[in-house]
């Protein structure tokens, strides 16, 4: 890793006797300052905050203290990493000079820049990649605990409380991992090069969006040891107001993560709109760029709502307000609305970039032009537009507004039309292509298969009378795993293998990528087909034990889940060994025509010596144009 990332040897940056502040701040100072602030605030609050046990609603005082400590952690961490240096220096009227900005960009720092507030988009991309892998690893281990517990009908060897906490934890961190899995690593590393830019529009915001995620993770990890997120990832109120102190970790986590998403969304959107190379008109912009922009632009209206919903949840807990408390005049339905106004666009935030990434790969691995670029753009746009009008299909059975069932059923089923367009583009590109048998190519087939199943089961679920039976059952769990994992994660893993040469300078081990692909895909289909069947037979979601009649289906699912884990471990092994000692990659190993393959390995600090001028779309394969 280090050898590949290092710049050609040159003079070390600063030779001043006493290192300036910005050179002394890194992840260690951030963790230290964050922890110290949290502990200090915690102790002070314990000492001085009046005990209002008489008027308390549930854990009032403890909630205030733990939320205050988490806020202190957040501020301490962000100060410690150096996020405030830029604004502070500007306030003083002593803005950063050129050398300092180059230091910020990570010039000549080798591996150290990965542990600092570095603004270079390529560093941020690698940081995102590593963090995404770590989160997936934890989420995967939790999934295995869930499946092991459910392997046998009465075999619940995990306590119900712990089991519920594991389910909630698995849910929320997998959601976060899938949200960042493409726009984080590839959106940051690849996207600016792909549009012919030297960096993002706001490099410091780019660093900010990454370090916000790092700041958000400890609260959710700590929450596991302070009562856990026992409410599922959706944290419905009033259950959430009843849950232990772990919920405060969830609230802090969501608020910080939502900030990160908003910052990244503003940054990526601006970059793509303003910084495309000369000649890259919208018709010549690669489809992956559309996917990334659609994803982050959709998050822009969605995540402020999530942020707000959790602020209100925190106020209910800590200050006994009653946004969601019926006895005080609030309503749990308000929470459900806010949550799903975020929650449904959010699934397309995850899905669209994955499909777009595979659309980007389809022409490369079939040596044929992308079929119907306009339909692809329209499909992505149509899904985005409709996705903000469908949230209440998660609430058909809540009793909130029976008269709204029919309108939401209409908007939801209309999504099948733009979704069908994405299928048309992929299948039209593959048709009569010269298929280059690689893991990314097979991922396109896997996506077609998984997403077809996920999409059709989605139609059943969008139908109100059918949903009256299926809602809240394992069928729903299987359905969204088919879309988010079967389609989303498949696209992300293909992206990893596809862009690995550019990001690390080495080829991903071919054999390992094949083994991982088949283990994951077969295991996945076994696992979630089994889950569909038990859902249809009537097993509810999020249960830690079940009736004996569901044993067989659950055993199948558990076997499938272990197969997925084996595949993912092979993939992890492939990432580590290929990154350390893989075959050195040529500049353009896939003979692709997008701009990121025109820069050398490793990619120089500002990507291009001379900014490129684009004269055509990147899909002109074949004799017609050559």
């Amino acid at each position, binding site marked *: 890793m280090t050898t590949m990332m290092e710049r050609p040897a040159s003079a070390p940056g600063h030779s001043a006797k006493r290192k300036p502040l910005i050179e002394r701040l890194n992840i260690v100072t951030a963790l230290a300052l964050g922890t110290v602030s949290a502990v200090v605030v915690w102790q002070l609050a314990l000492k001085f905050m009046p005990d209002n046990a008489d008027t308390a609603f549930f854990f009032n005082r403890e909630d205030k203290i733990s939320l205050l400590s988490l806020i202190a952690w957040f501020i301490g961490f962000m100060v410690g990493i150096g996020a405030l240096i830029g604004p502070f220096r500007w306030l003083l009227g002593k803005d950063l000079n050129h050398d300092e900005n180059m230091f910020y960009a990570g010039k000549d720092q080798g591996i150290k820049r990965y542990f600092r507030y570095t603004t270079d988009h390529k560093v941020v991309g690698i940081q995102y990649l590593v963090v995404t892998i770590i989160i997936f690893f934890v989420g995967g281990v939790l999934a295995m605990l869930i499946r092991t517990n459910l392997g046998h009908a009465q075999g619940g060897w995990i306590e119900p409380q712990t089991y519920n906490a594991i389910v909630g934890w698995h849910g929320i961190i997998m959601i976060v991992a899938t949200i960042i899995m493409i726009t984080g690593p590839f959106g940051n590393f690849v996207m600016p090069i792909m549009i012919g830019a030297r960096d993002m529009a706001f490099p410091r915001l780019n660093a900010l969006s990454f370090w916000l995620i790092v700041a958000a993770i400890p609260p959710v990890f700590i929450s596991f040891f302070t009562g856990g997120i026992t409410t599922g990832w959706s944290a419905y109120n009033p259950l959430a107001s009843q849950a232990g102190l772990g919920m405060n970790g969830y609230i802090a986590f969501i608020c910080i993560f939502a900030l990160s998403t908003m910052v990244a969304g503003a940054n990526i959107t601006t970059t793509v709109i303003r910084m495309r190379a000369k000649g890259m008109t919208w018709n010549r912009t690669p489809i992956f760029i559309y996917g990334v922009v659609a994803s982050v632009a959709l998050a822009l209206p969605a995540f402020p709502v999530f942020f707000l919903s959790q602020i209100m949840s925190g106020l209910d807990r800590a200050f006994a307000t009653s946004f969601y408390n019926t006895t005080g005049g609030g309503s*749990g339905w308000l929470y459900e609305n806010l949550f799903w106004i975020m929650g449904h666009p959010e699934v397309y935030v995850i899905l669209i970039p994955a499909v777009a990434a595979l659309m980007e790969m389809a022409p490369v691995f079939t040596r044929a032009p992308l079929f119907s670029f306009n339909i692809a753009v329209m499909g992505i746009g149509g899904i985005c537009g409709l996705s903000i009008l469908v949230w209440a299909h998660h609430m058909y059975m809540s009793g909130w507004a029976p008269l709204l069932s029919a309108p939401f059923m209409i908007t939801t089923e209309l999504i*099948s039309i733009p979704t069908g367009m994405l299928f*048309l583009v992929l299948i039209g590109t593959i*048709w009569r292509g*010269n298929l280059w*048998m690689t893991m990314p190519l097979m991922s396109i087939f896997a996506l077609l298969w998984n997403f077809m199943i996920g999409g059709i089961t989605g139609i059943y679920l969008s139908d109100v009378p059918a949903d009256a039976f299926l*809602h*809240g059952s394992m069928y729903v769990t299987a359905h969204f795993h088919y879309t988010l994992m079967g389609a989303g994660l498949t696209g992300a893993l293909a992206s990893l293998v596809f862009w690995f040469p550019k990001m690390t300078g080495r080829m991903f081990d071919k054999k390992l990528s094949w083994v991982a692909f088949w283990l994951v895909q077969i295991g996945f289909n076994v696992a979630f087909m089994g889950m569909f069947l038990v859902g249809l037979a009537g097993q509810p979601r999020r249960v830690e*034990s079940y009736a004996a009649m569901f044993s067989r289906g659950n055993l199948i699912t558990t076997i499938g889940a272990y197969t997925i884990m084996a595949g993912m471990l092979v993939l992890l092994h492939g990432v580590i060994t290929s990154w350390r000692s893989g075959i050195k990659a040529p500049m353009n190993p896939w003979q692709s025509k997008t701009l990121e393959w025109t820069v050398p390995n490793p990619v120089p600090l500002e990507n291009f010596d001379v900014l490129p001028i684009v004269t055509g779309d990147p899909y002109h394969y074949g004799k017609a144009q050559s």
Partner: protein
Amino acid sequence: MTDIQTPQSAKWWKKTDVKRVFLLWIILTAVIGYVGSEVQARSMGAPASEVMASVISLIRIFTWAAAPVAALVAALAITALMEKRHYGDNPPPDALHQVHTSPRVNGLWMAASTVLCLFALIVGLIVLQKDSASLLDAKAMNVNVTGQQWVWNFDYVESNRVRSADLYLPVNKPVVFHVSSKDVKHSFWVVQMGIKIDANPGYVTETAVTPNKIGVFDVRCAELCGLLHAYMQTKVHVVSQADYETWLKSTAVTQGAIS
């Protein structure tokens, strides 16, 4: 399919790969439709109400409507995969077939998906209308359902609020459930009757069904409600009208003091 625009090919439907797609499409439509609907219908078990029967038939109809689409995509994908494969570390030559777009295919695809979408919508809306109408049945008996962590309680409105933890219902008599909760959200799910509605604290929600089969069925909570959510389940005993009366009387006697 996509070469209908290519002028040099005389008849696009006479090409071998198109014929293969067509054949596969027919076979796969039948297989996907049959296997998909049968496996799902069988997993759902025997219905204990008209509502559940219509859920099962909805799933059958949707599966058959989706089968041609799934089969077409599968047929095209399989054929493409069977034709030209290239292994190795260097890319294959560019494909001979170079079609950037095809207005006719695009139009056809969009028209077909719109028709299928409208079909699914109309079928669903008809069933929804029927289910909603049953809430207004004046002859129906009323049961108040109360969820609390982690049990269900049933109050029989017309019978002096006899209370039970197992649900007893006379066969072939419409019943409207008025569902509420004492603490957090629960979801009242009578599995084999295909009905479900959330139990919200502070509000009453409604759902209705007419059980049409004598037997013992399951009530499960379908919304995570805390520690023992998995165990929040009980039984529905659907009995004949005479048995129901007998049960009511015996229960009313034992509950005489409290009711």
